[in-house]
Every structure is written in C-alpha cells, then in structure tokens.
C-alpha cells in the first residue's frame, strides 16, 4: 500500500470538508459542550455541593467522555466521505484510477481519523486546563494531567475512533443516505455510554488498569471490525453489491 496515494484521497476529503463545513459542525457540538461547558458546570457544582473527596471520581468519569467524543467525531465525517461518494456516484471513476482498494480505504479512514483525534485532543487540553483552573481551590492540587487522561485521549480515544471508522465503512455498504448512515453510525456510542453510566453509578471503576484492559479489548474488536471493513471495501463488492 502506498501511503502517498492514501494521502491524496485524504487531502481531497479535507478539501471537501473545508467547503462543506456542516460536516464538521456536528462534530464540534459535542466536543464544545464537553471541553468548555462541562468545566463550567464542574465549577458551579464544586462551589455549591461537591467535596474534595467526591470530585476526583466525578472528574475521572467525565474524562471518559473523551472516548465517547472520539467515537462520535468521525461518524459524520466518515458517513459523508463514504455514503457521499455513493450518492454522488463517484466511486466508479475513483475505483477506475490506479489506486488500490486499501489505499482508498486508508485515505478515507485517515480523513475521518485525523480531524476527530485532533479535535478530541484539543478538547481534552481545554477541558483539563479549565477543570484545573476551576477545581484547584477545592482540591488543592491540579487534577490533570494524569495517566488516566493520557490513556483515554492517546490510547482509548484513537482506538474508539478507529472502531467508529470501521463500523461506518460497514454501514456505508448498506445505506444510501448520509443522515441514515450518521444515525446508524452513532450507535457505536452505546457501549461507551454504557461504560460511562457504569462508572458514574460506581458499578465500574475507571482505574488505570481497567482502562488498559478496555484498550486491549477495543484493540481486538478494532482488528475484527477492520478485517470486516476491508472485506466489504472490495471493488467487486462496491460495484455489484453495495446498495
């Protein structure tokens, strides 16, 4: 696989996003709420009710929202990138170029992965800075950065993002509408939302070791989903079976 070819495909996607900003807007909403809105809520809560003992558990659980963010952000991008090609019927001329299926798939994945991870990373930096600013008085120390946030943003986040991209490839082979693809693609959030709820209800503790176990499981699931996505993204399948 030639990465230069994948990069050509990804660059074109970036150009498309720059012209169709609505694709990115939906990605910004969630991240904006988590990165900026949530710290202000934490500030309000910590001033009113939260104690120094309860705050770290709350903050650890909130950190997990960046895994949810990482799986949500690529949904709109990947949906548009793949189903958009189907709607515009541009897959046939694209497949007619001397570019392999893997290179096209890699390009599309890069185009969905990089902005999502960049936005998530920026969101995490803003979130942790604001949280530190607002909670330092109560905690008497800076809660962030910590290893859990590093694992969440740099390991679990990218793995969740890859899962969302792979899952969207599978969905894109079955739907012909970008919105439907986005709606179905958003279902990938459910397991992560479930983990978040379990952590908030103290059923599951988001310790460093638990986060690493989750990362290992996610990496295995990613491998399976990407194997399926690669099998789905074959030109024979695309031109004859994709509906």
């Amino acid at each position, binding site marked *: 696989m030639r990465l230069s070819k994948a990069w*050509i495909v990804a660059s074109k996607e970036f150009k498309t996003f720059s*012209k169709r900003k609505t694709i990115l807007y939906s990605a910004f909403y969630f991240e904006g709420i988590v990165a900026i809105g949530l710290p202000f809520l934490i500030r309000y809560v910590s001033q009113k009710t939260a104690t120094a003992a309860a705050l770290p558990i709350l903050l650890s659980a909130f950190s997990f929202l960046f895994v949810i963010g990482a799986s949500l952000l690529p949904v709109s991008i990947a949906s548009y990138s793949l189903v958009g090609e189907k709607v515009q019927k*541009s897959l046939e*001329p*694209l*497949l007619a170029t*001397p570019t*392999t299926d893997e290179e096209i798939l890699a390009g599309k994945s890069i185009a969905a992965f990089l902005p999502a991870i960049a936005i998530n990373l920026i969101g995490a930096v803003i979130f942790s800075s604001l949280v530190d600013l607002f909670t330092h008085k109560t905690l008497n120390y800076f809660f962030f950065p910590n290893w859990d946030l590093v694992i969440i943003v740099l390991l679990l986040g990218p793995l969740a993002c890859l899962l969302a991209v792979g899952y969207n490839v599978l969905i894109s082979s079955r739907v012909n509408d970008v919105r439907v693809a986005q709606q179905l693609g958003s279902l990938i959030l459910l397991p992560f939302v479930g983990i978040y709820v379990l952590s908030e209800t103290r059923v599951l503790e988001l310790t460093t070791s638990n986060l690493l176990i989750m990362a290992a499981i996610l990496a295995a699931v990613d491998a399976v989903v990407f194997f399926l996505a690669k099998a789905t993204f074959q030109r024979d399948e695309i031109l004859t079976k994709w509906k």
Partner: protein
Amino acid sequence: MNMIEVQNLTKKFGETTAVDAISFSVAEGEVFGLLGPNGAGKTTTIRMLCCLISKTSGEAQIAGYQVGSGADSLAIRILIGLVPDNIGLYEELSAYENLDYYGKLYECPEDIRKESIEHYLTMMELWEKRDQPISDFSKGMKQKVAIARALIHDPKLLVFDEPTANLDPESARVVKDIIMQLKSEGKTIFLNTHNLSEAQRICDRIGILKTKLLTVNTPEQMEKTVWGSKTVIQVEQVTDQILAAVSEQSPRDMSVDENKIILSLTDPQKENPDFVQAIVAAGGRVQYVTQLNPGLEETYLKVIEETK
C-alpha cells in the same frame, strides 16, 4: 498489436450469466461500439475490461496486460480513461479541483497535470469556469468535465459508457464532436451506447451484445450481412406481366410492396439493368431504382429480434 483482446470472457452473478463467453478484439486507433438493450451486459463488460470487477472465466488483455491479474490491474487502469454512465464528479469541488485530484491519482507530475487541466478545460470551453463548483454546472458541462477527467493522464484507451445518455440534443452533439476529435487524434475508443446514429457516425466497427456477442462488423458490412443486397424498383403500376417478367430473371427473392418490387440479388450492379430491361419490355414504366438501405437501427432490431 490489438489494444483489446477478449476471448470467451464470461461474468456470472450467482446463477445469472451477465456476459456469456464473448470474444472480440479492438485494434489500436479503432473506435469500437458495443450496442445492446438494457441489461445486455455492456456495462459489465466495460467494468471487467477496466479491472473494476472480476471476470468469472475467459481471457482479456489490454495492450498486452492481463485483465484479472492483480499485478497487471494497476498498469491497465493507467492505460484507460473511463467515462462512466454516471458522471460521478465531486459537486463541492470546482472543475479544476476535480481534475487535479484525478491527475494526482493517475500519477501525473504537477507541471504536466497543470498543463493538461488547462488544455482540456480550454478544449471543453470551460477554462473560464474552472473555479466554479461542479454543482453550478449543467449536465452537459458536467459530462465535458467527466471526459476531461478521463483524458487527464493521456490514456491510450478511452472507454465511454453511454456518453450521451440523458443529455439534451445540443450537449449530446458537443460530446459526439469531442469523441470525433479524439478519434481523429488516433485514440482507441471503446463506446457503449444505445444511440444507433451515434454508433453509426462514430464507430469503425460495432458489436451487438445481448449477454452473448451476436455479431461484430463495420456498420455497413453488418447491414449487408443481415439484409443481403436488395434492390427496390418502383414502377408506375405493378402488373402480372411485369411480375412474370421479373420472375423469369430468377432473383434470389422477390416481394411486392404497393408499386415497389423488392428484389434480393447476388450481384446488383450486374443484375439491375437486366431486371429494369425486363420490366420495361413487359410494359412497365420504371420510376426509381434504389438500393434498400434499412439503416443500423433496423439492422440492430433484426439482430436482436432473431435471438428471441
């Protein structure tokens, strides 16, 4: 060397045979048209030749490269410029950006790419509109950009799938003129079409496909083969004496349509004067003597009808 060599090429989708053991060749610089009804396998044939879908069996070569061989697929795709039946341009991007993207995918160096984009957009009279998004373009303009996209890497073989379908007559004419210009430049062209007048005007040879390849020939030769040589003699009034006189000359076949006597002849140039002389001797007044020219449309319909 032939640009395209196809031997018993077959494509099956499950139990359904879409293309059944077709064989033909296309010489370098030739314009070959593939005619056939909807679902005849024309697009499937193109997709196999362009290495877009796999073949079930048979052999096909493009400029000596083997279709279906993983190693040759990329080389084949560089040789081909495809204009699919769906235009498939990126609506948000400008004409220039669309062509630039494909130029990069076809591995054109930047300077050549820029030169080619300017050349083809100028040729298509779209250079002034190069920065406008494709969504602002009419269907005819989009088709021109799609043709420019297929030419951007200077392919040896151009493949058109229904290039004038759904275009208004004026746009269709422009597209046909562009194809004629490419033909005059010596490009090898493979054309799928429903449009018989287009095929007759553009193609050196045509093949009629209905899952199987029914016939391949030049349009003129195909007419002769299908219909034979027929002479129409129009007289003022057909009488029994005239018919008897004509029968005496032993034509291969004879029929009468109002005041026209239609004759099937082996050598019309030699036999026509004898028939005219016989009719005049029998008291007939000959108004016209013409050669029956049913045209490609009638020929095509007859070939297709014979398969039913």
